[in-house]
């Protein structure tokens, strides 16, 4: 079958990294992503199923990999060559429509799950992600053994499969995985804001992840006042539609938080600030900004994937701010104490809030250069999520 594959070719990775600053399109063309002909993957064992891809989204981490920007941290957690693509909706051999929870967890690799009913992403020891009877790979889409969503088919374990109702469209379903990430980040603010009367949570960045986090906050954190910094007009209107109270440009976010929390400004830090902040951008500057307008003993949830950053942490030390990474979904503890799987929450949210409006364009696999260039410039070009459409003709092209 024809699939998009990333191989570890140093020259290509370096070339892509250099060119990505000038022209993302050129970076993709010269980069390590190639269209190759490979055999469909074999089922690793019982409990594994073949998935036929309908839609596969392009995520920020995929872009980082393809442009050679991914941190060296991941070198030991992926197995080259791999087929990317972890935001997938497809159907199984028996016809059921499913979305995939891409983390290759304990059950998939043949280990005991950490607790009864654990999700693939749970557990305090990540050894299972790099060992077991599969090649290393944190997720489908980074693992040589399983293939990934940017191919007509791949394999997934029973623990990763979520059936979706017929009432849910493919276009809604492809947003389930990012929605889960956003909801997980939103729920990471609960230890700080849970129980407060009218907590203030700021969200910096309104791409797909930021918008999903806003939706998660509005649904699962009661009484929260959401202040968003969004750069582009389409992001601003979507943020408002998904439940944000105040939406401003990113450079006005600090002042908007100051007004909402009635703090003073001391130097460039607020004397108080938001109870929690979700950083959906994750650069040195965005982390520094978030630390400035989060209140002392508040929490900054780092949802975007950073690389090497340089931040002055004196403010964090002095204000006893918590800086917490938000990677993936698993089992959440809600405000009322109940335990739910993030993916289940995501499936509900994507359907009820009509997340298909976040899917801005789809491309065939052959047009992968254009697709990735579009995804890299999504904000500027008025788009949110870009996906590959592998459904057979007649082509269903969504707006």
């Amino acid at each position, binding site marked *: 079958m024809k699939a998009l594959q990333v191989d570890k070719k140093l020259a290509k990775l370096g070339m892509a990294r250099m060119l990505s600053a000038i022209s993302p399109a050129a970076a993709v063309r010269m980069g390590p992503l190639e269209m190759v002909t490979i055999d469909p993957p074999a089922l690793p064992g019982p409990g594994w199923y073949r998935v036929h891809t309908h839609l596969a989204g392009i995520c920020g981490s995929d872009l980082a990999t393809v442009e050679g920007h991914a941190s060296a941290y991941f070198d030991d957690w992926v197995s080259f060559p791999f087929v990317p693509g972890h935001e997938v909706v497809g159907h199984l051999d028996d016809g059921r429509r499913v979305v995939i929870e891409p983390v290759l967890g304990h059950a998939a690799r043949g280990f005991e799950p950490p607790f009864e009913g654990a999700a693939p992403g749970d557990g305090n020891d990540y050894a299972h992600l790099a060992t077991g009877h599969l090649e290393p790979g944190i997720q489908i889409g980074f693992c040589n053994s399983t293939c990934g969503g940017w191919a007509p088919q791949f394999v997934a374990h029973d623990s990763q499969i979520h059936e979706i109702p017929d009432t849910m469209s493919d276009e809604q379903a492809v947003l389930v995985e990012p929605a889960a990430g956003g909801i997980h980040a939103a729920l990471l603010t609960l230890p700080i804001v849970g129980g407060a009367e009218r907590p203030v949570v700021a969200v910096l960045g309104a791409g797909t992840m930021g918008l999903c986090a806003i939706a998660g906050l509005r649904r699962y954190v009661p009484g929260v006042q959401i202040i968003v910094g969004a750069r582009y007009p389409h992001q601003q209107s979507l943020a408002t539609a998904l439940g944000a109270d105040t939406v*401003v440009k990113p450079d*006005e976010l600090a*002042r*908007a938080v*100051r*007004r909402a929390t*009635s*703090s*003073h*400004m001391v130097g460039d830090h607020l004397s108080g600030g938001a109870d929690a902040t979700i950083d959906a951008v994750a650069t040195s500057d965005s982390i520094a900004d978030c630390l400035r307008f989060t209140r002392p003993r508040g929490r900054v949830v780092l949802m975007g994937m950073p690389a090497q950053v340089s931040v002055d942490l004196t403010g964090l030390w002095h204000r006893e701010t918590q800086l917490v990474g938000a990677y993936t979904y698993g089992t959440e503890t809600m405000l009322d104490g109940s335990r739910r799987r993030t993916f289940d929450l995501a499936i509900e949210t994507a359907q009820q809030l009509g997340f298909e409006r976040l899917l801005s364009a789809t491309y065939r696999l052959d047009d992968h250069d254009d697709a990735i260039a579009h995804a890299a410039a999504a904000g500027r070009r008025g788009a949110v999520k870009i996906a590959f459409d592998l459904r057979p003709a007649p082509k269903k092209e969504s707006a």
Partner: protein
Amino acid sequence: MPRPGFVLEVDRSTPPILFWRGENFSLEKLPAGRSRVIYPPEPLKAIDDIDSAITHALLNPIDQDPLPALLLPGMRLTICFDDVSLPLPKMQQPDTRQRVIEAVLDMAAEAGVDDVHIIAALGLHRRMHEYEMRHALGDRIYDAFHPRGMLYQHDAEDHDNLAVLGTTDHGEVLEINKRAAESDLVVYVNINSVPMDGGWKSICTGLASYRCLSHHHNGETLQNTRSMSGHRKHSALHTSIWRMGQVLQENGPKLFQIETTLNTDMFPKPFDFIAKREWEWTGRDRATYLATTKSLNRTPLRIARKIFHNIEAPHQMTSIQAGETEAVHALTLEHVYRQQLVPVEGQTDILTMGIPYVCPYNPDSVMNPILVMCMGLGYLFNMYRNKPLVRQGGVIIMTHPTYRDFHPVHHPSYIDFFEQVLPDTTDPVVMGHKWERQYAEDEWYRHLYRTGNAYHGVHPFYAWYWGAHGQQHAGKVIIVGGDAPTVRRLGFTPASTMDDAFEIATDVVGRAPTITHLHVPSLLVADVS
């Protein structure tokens, strides 16, 4: 012999006219046959021996005992003075305030008065920097009184030091600085650059609290102030203040009002060409103009601002009168009008004006977009008596670069006003009801007003209210040369050139509109019949 102001009918031989554009100038050609330019009167001659004039005024006041008779040993004397929002540009030293206060202090020393406080009556304006106080008062007064804590600036948010003097029959509360309220004698030293100032306004706004000011500093009142430069009976602002003045007179301390007027000699050589009539520019003037504009085009904005704000004007005192407030003020207004009044016949469809780099609310600071509106639709539009220069529904065209630039120390609440309030509404009455309270009660703005050098949190609203009448009166407001998104945020229309602006105006006023150009910088009041 200074010539009076006059109205020039523009014809084909009229040279292009000078327009201010913030920190630069331009020359614009106005259409012949249907444009007129209003030139201000030339500066009157200043008083010859100013110190003698001051002494004479203090010894021969109007409807009041001579000052030495009012000064008794052991009394509590408070001297108040106008802050550096005027005169603009700042005077060359010695400033009028310095001269007058030194003369008063001489008499106070003669009389053996020890308890003297000197208060800057700045209302809700920002506290002045030390160098500004030294410029206005001179080093002698500053070094003698400031270290002793006897020279300070009014703090409208210091509730322990405010006193209510009474209520008018319209329910307006007069609340002023406590020290002044409880003094045996309050001497007010005023500089009357424009007809709006002086009289009861000096104390009733300069030493007032926010509560007191909000009775007349609001959208409705300013919409009914037509104009602030004209007869008091047409100005709701002054009517309210005069009511408070009655309360002040009945329940307040004994007052000795000293008012002075300045001539309009606003630019030192070689920049005096700015106020000259264009056809009288000498070769040297033209060379200076070209050199100035070309070098300003290349100068970074920060440096251009510094150059302009360092200009010290040679304007000088033309009259001084002291004594009972209303009697003194009547005389002062006569002198102001003598210098500034220009008779004009009729209104036109369009009014054009160049906005300078400074207004009373940004001395030595940045002119932000809100102040552009305030200067244009507030001060300059209102420089009329009887009727505005432009007809109801006409078009006002201003020239100014209107950068989205704010001074973070002086105008912090202006930034939030621009980001939060203006996108929501530009209607002064609506914003007063919806947003003003939040800005009045914000702790941080209060902190900066009291301890820093920031205008009070509500001050951007006041700047906006100042333009309320102009905003209502005009059918369209166009800013030429401004930053387009910023101009739109203000509720105005951006245009790149004057011709484009005239073109845009035709939608409102028709194909061949009549135009009046207000030739500021020199101050003038148009007496429109």
